[in-house]
């Protein structure tokens, strides 16, 4: 029952959320992701599946609405772009601390501050290294196509509920605004209250007898107990690192040089590979699909076989730090990227590779 449509990345996220059987979406308009809530309001999923959609008064309110719904074992999500995602950091920290499942989408734009509305990948640090306060991790999926915008909604909720952890889909204005062919999944039914009780009744606040009551909190006044809680979180994160690393290798057999890029930059780099071929250069690409957990091992192993690595991202150099940690000095690792909303062309990436790695 797959259906092929031409859709914007943002629209694909919205449609996928309905088909995933999401219970509630809470959002606040911001370019370049407003199509998500616009699409949902137009589509009226409350009539299609009973999914609730609400325009909140702020991104802060929206993420806290997600908290409330997620704490009831419901599939809840929100989306925004960089400045709004900054506002959601407090809520994300609470959600991570309370171990609630949810999916949050960031369609990144150029910063800092109000920045620009054009595509950027400069929220990598915020997303992967914490963002909010405390020792927590988001599971981060980086779509590189409209198809993945759609697919990662389902993958995201699967991961979120498997680990009771917030999942971030880290996209950007390019993937959000472009249209591509997308194969939509069949409609999943939303879970009934009884199904939720069966699956998540051991933690969700569904209304219970006092003897069996549930509390959702991230507070633990005794530091010894808060340390224990952190141990539990850390053990969970080690499991995620062990099981959930995802990446794609493109043209890596016999490559002399390696590009590492995710999301829109990975698309651009694929063209760079073609341009390089025309010049007789053999370039490979590793595309991290999960940014956390990061495919460090794959990059470490690939480093043995190449003469140098260029990390390409729409930022002044963020993911490159993780690439360097992974490579651990085995070969030269350099960074290239336009930023502030500017997009590097495939040609620019090739010149950077020639200058910084091949020539350098």
């Amino acid at each position, binding site marked *: 029952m797959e259906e092929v449509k031409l859709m914007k990345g943002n629209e694909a996220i919205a449609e996928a959320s309905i088909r995933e059987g999401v219970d509630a979406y809470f959002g606040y308009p911001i370019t370049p992701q407003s199509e998500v809530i616009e699409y949902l309001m137009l589509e009226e999923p409350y009539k299609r599946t009973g999914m609730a959609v609400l325009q909140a008064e702020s991104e*802060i309110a929206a993420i806290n609405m997600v908290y*409330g719904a997620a704490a*009831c074992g419901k599939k809840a999500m929100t989306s925004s772009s960089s400045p709004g995602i900054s506002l959601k950091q407090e809520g994300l920290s609470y959600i991570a601390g309370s171990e609630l499942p949810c999916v949050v989408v960031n369609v990144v734009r150029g910063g800092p501050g109000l920045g620009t509305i054009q595509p950027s990948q400069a929220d990598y640090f915020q997303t992967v290294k914490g963002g909010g306060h405390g020792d927590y991790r988001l599971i981060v999926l980086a779509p590189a196509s409209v198809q993945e915008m759609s697919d990662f909604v389902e993958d995201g909720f699967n991961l979120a509920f498997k680990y009771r952890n917030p999942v971030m889909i880290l996209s950007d204005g390019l993937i959000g605004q472009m249209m591509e062919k997308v194969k939509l999944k069949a409609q999943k039914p939303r879970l009934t*209250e009884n199904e939720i009780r069966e699956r998540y009744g051991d933690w969700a606040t569904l209304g219970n007898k006092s003897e069996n009551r549930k*509390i959702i909190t991230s507070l633990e006044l005794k530091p010894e107990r808060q340390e224990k809680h952190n141990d539990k979180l850390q053990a969970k994160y080690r499991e995620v690192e062990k099981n959930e690393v995802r990446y794609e290798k493109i043209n890596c057999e016999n490559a002399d040089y390696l590009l590492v890029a995710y999301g829109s930059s990975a698309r651009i780099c694929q063209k760079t590979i073609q341009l390089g071929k025309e010049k007789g250069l053999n370039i490979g690409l590793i595309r991290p699909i999960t940014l956390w957990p990061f495919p460090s091992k794959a990059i470490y192993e690939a480093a043995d076989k190449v003469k140098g690595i260029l990390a390409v991202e729409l930022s002044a150099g963020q993911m490159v730090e993780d690439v360097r940690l992974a490579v651990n000095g085995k070969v030269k690792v350099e960074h290239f990227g336009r930023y502030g909303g500017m997009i590097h062309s495939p040609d620019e990436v090739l010149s950077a590779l020639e200058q910084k790695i091949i020539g350098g």
Partner: protein
Amino acid sequence: MSEILTPEEIIKKGTLVFKKTKLMTDANLSYCPGCGHGVAHRITMEVLEEMGIAEQTIGIAPVGCSVLAYDFMNIDMQQAAHGRAPAVATGIKRVFPDKYVFTYQGDGDLAAIGTNETIHACNRGENIVIIFINNGIYGMTGGQMAPTTLAGMKSSTSPYGRDLAMTGHPIKITEMVAMLPGVCYATRQAVHKPALVRKAKKAIQKAFENQRDKKGTSIVEIVSNCNSGWKMTPVDSNVWLEENMLPVFPLGDIKG
């Protein structure tokens, strides 16, 4: 020779006049002796018990002295970030429209950092109950000025008394939200005297009945003392409340 009786022995003697609702846990209240929070907790739980809706109710604890409300209220509870309880309540209510949802918030939580969430939840007429403990101060963090702190009132961040020119006026947020069409019931109560406790409980009951009847947002403000923050004995703080708080925050129904 005085004999010390156990509670069971006292009850056996037929002197039982009050029984703690089973919707309050046996955990020791973390509130200062004489603080109004404990009474407000109890009457809220009594209402849920008497209405028979405890098992369909989800409560939300704020950030403030009542952050641990979930240790005392013996029902399903969520703990919200500072000021965000009305948004959390909205999230729950939108996925479970037929369950009962209430927030329990202090004045700093509801009328300073969470003003936006408060006003917009009320403006949407979220079908929830908001129980609002106005003690004119930030109790939990050690007695700093709150948006409801009275003119000239001393706190650790207004050590010479609240200067209205510098920090504005005590905010009457219950009157403010009463103006919104989404709010069906706005009332101001107190719990420092038995008769007032009975009235406050009736108000809370009416608020939950409104929720049952899907009427919109009900807000029950409870003007309460904070003897620690005000640096008074409990008895003095109740007198001070009567003489100083109530003229600014008069008791009674504001709407509905």
